[in-house]
């Protein structure tokens, strides 16, 4: 009995995870860009320590939904969000919420690697510094190293921490951005097509990283690659025309989805 296989342990872990509370809860979330409605009453709960993949054709609202989770939509003029989104128990659209603090708790990695045109070290230390997370230089060194370790980049850059971040390869830059997101100890990491500008090897490294980060963070990833969703996530949510079509275990989603639209989309068919 105690000789549980690795798969059984993983399954038990997943089971346990599915019992724990949701990290973020989206209730009747609608988004309008001016007159145009981009999301229609989406109810989607994000499980803790789980990778949730958002899939769907272009313009389906998956990125829009992702961006509501740390109020990135605030920066877009005319954008209006209705419904309720909570992080743990905090309503993130509450007037008393400090958006800067929210974005430290809910970090984001973008499609195109966007390191600051500064040194690798400064790319990582910037966040902790503005949030006052390090008391002294030694503290900061420690945060920088730990973040780069977590992002699987440490051994590659430890001898050139003071060279420019923009001098790294695309894949390294993206992992640098992940390290930067991790440096402020977020609870949730949002990723908007983090691998679409990377080659397969760099993609594999980032995917491996996502898999490892799951132990400490809750991850929501938007991806156009269905295979990537299948590879990295435990839960998959399918969006279509601004509606959430189906949210299910990834295993189920890619073997026997409930909704015909999901089926058609993941199989590359049209009805």
């Amino acid at each position: 009995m105690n000789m549980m296989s690795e798969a059984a342990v993983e399954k038990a872990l997943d089971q346990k995870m599915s019992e724990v509370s949701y990290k973020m809860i989206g209730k009747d979330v609608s988004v309008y860009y001016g007159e145009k409605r981009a999301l229609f009453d989406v109810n989607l709960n994000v499980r803790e320590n789980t990778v949730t993949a958002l899939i769907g054709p272009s313009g389906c609202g998956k990125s829009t939904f992702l961006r509501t989770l740390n109020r990135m939509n605030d920066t877009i003029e005319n954008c209006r969000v209705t419904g309720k989104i909570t992080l743990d128990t905090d309503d993130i659209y509450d007037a008393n919420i400090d958006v800067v603090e929210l974005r430290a708790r809910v970090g984001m990695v973008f499609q195109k690697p966007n390191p600051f045109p500064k040194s690798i070290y400064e790319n990582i230390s910037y966040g902790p510094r503005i949030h006052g997370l390090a008391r002294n230089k030694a503290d900061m060194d420690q945060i920088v190293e730990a973040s780069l370790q977590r992002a699987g980049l440490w051994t590659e850059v430890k001898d050139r921490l003071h060279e420019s971040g923009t001098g790294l390869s695309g894949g390294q830059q993206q992992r640098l951005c992940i390290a930067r997101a991790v440096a402020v100890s977020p609870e949730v990491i949002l990723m908007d097509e983090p691998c679409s500008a990377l080659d397969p090897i760099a993609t594999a490294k980032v995917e491996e990283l996502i898999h490892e980060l799951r132990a400490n963070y809750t991850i929501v990833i938007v991806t156009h690659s269905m295979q990537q969703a299948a590879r990295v996530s435990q839960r998959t949510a399918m969006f279509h025309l601004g509606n959430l079509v189906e949210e299910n275990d990834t295993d189920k989603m890619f073997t026997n989805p409930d909704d015909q639209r999901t089926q058609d989309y993941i199989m590359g068919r049209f009805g």
Partner: protein
Amino acid sequence: MASTHILSAYDDELKYLSRRISEMGGLAEQMCSDAVRALVNADSALAQKVISDDVILDHAEREIGDKAIVTIARRQPVATDLREIVGSLRIASDLERVGDLGKNTAKRVIAVQGTGVPRKLARGLEHLSDLALVQLKDVLDVYATRSAEKAEAIRSRDEEIDAMYTSLFRELLTYMMEDPRNITTCTHLLFCAKNIERIGDHATNIAETIYYMTTGAQPEGDRPKDDSSNTLGAITE
């Protein structure tokens, strides 16, 4: 299939698999029916043809396997597509086994040729083979329509074949007990009967595979069985 893939080459690959399975099914069916006919009519030329046809079936199974592997590698199929391809692999292997069973029956034609098959036994074997071949033919028709309900119906019909096989088994035992000179022929016929009964089992396997391909779920409950030959004669004496 209601919808088609955006990539038409993908559809072509799936259609190819489906077509080859149907062809295999047709050939396997023909081989089995020829084998029994050869047995009953002591037709060694026909038996020889069955034996040589098996090569074609083996070859087809390998081709389906190769194509399925390439399709999986290139298309990364999911959901229905994935089940369809895995199903093709399973069905191809069942049909290949059916061909082997037909071939084995054909080989025995030569062994029993000198003695001839008693009329009554021949009729029993023919009847058993009719049942098994109807089962096989029906399951191949269901494959063409991918109907889960029909697949389930076929699955529950295997019982009849099992019952018929048990009765034939009993009859062969009786012949052997009547006259030891019958033993050689009857033993061969017993194997033939077993072969035919196994064809029914493979048809049932195929029905279960079709059910899975269509629904994504395994058919519920044990398959019905009425084969009591494995305990026959155990209590006597």
